[in-house]
């Protein structure tokens, strides 16, 4: 305990402790010019899941493609909120795409093209990225896909 805290204790002043629980995971964090983005899900504006289920079981490949595109739209919204304008996106670096896959579903890359196609439509060459698409056993809220990204931002 520091001297100031001791003095406050003598004075009988107590500061309220901040409760940090549940505030650890945020949507985006900067490391220099690199913006790291959390996993984005196919949810609506209120954060409610739009698509629920495993790809290959409850959800087919085409629906999952749309879900991946919705992940991308949500991500664009986050980027805009954090950097102001999408013009400030220099280029995409890397994405990790997870597909909530049923037992014998192996077509993760075509599903995640829903995300990648959107980024190339919006940003052109700047939207191209290194990508890992992999099947997960389960994702948050049993949603079919999620995408996180690392992007380079112009100062």
């Amino acid at each position, binding site marked *: 305990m520091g001297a100031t805290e001791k003095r406050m204790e003598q004075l009988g002043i107590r500061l309220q402790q901040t409760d940090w629980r549940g505030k650890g995971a945020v949507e985006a964090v900067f*490391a220099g010019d690199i913006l790291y983005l959390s996993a984005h899900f196919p949810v609506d504006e209120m954060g409610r899941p739009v698509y629920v289920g495993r790809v290959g079981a409850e959800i087919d490949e085409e629906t999952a493609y749309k879900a991946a595109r919705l992940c991308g739209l949500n991500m664009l919204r986050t980027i805009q909120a954090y950097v102001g304008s999408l013009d400030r996106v220099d280029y995409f670096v890397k994405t990790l795409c997870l597909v909530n896959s049923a037992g014998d579903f192996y077509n993760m890359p075509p599903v995640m093209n829903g995300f990648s196609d959107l980024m190339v439509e919006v940003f052109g060459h700047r939207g191209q990225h290194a990508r890992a698409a992999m099947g997960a056993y389960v994702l948050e809220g049993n949603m079919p896909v999620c995408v996180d990204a690392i992007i380079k931002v112009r100062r």
Partner: protein
Amino acid sequence: MSTIHTIREDGQETVQRFPKYKPLIPIREADGVVYVSGHGPENINTYEPLYQGRVGAELTLEEGYAAAAECAKTLLRAVQERYGSLDCIHHMVRALALVNCGVDFAEPEKVADGFSDTCMQILQERGQHVRTVMGTRNMPNHNIPVEVEMIFVLSDAYRNKGERNKDGTI
């Protein structure tokens, strides 16, 4: 320095503290950004798992949460051992959490909250990070329930100051 020097120096067998047996290094620094290997809820000396089993099957959500909290302590211990103090963390950037899920368990993010909450308790606002949580089916070290890797930004004062790897790299 050649590879053999990592095993013997001056005829003495080199004591490696963390980790003991893996051909990996737990921490790599690049341009002020530090990458920390995935760590599970393990005893940091013996690598014995503190928790085993799948969340939602052998373990409850609460136990999974506690296991993820242990992951945070293990990771931060590794960082502390390398740089001498957790003051070296300017701010956390990213965490990738793998959660070993039982059948029909669809709340891996609540398990990973154990990691995030512990980071926030220890580092406060410096501990905020982006997070990707993935439910998996099988995990190493006798089926540990959670594993987390992280990336953080190093304070300028600690750049290139950490304990070096045996080959002199950072």
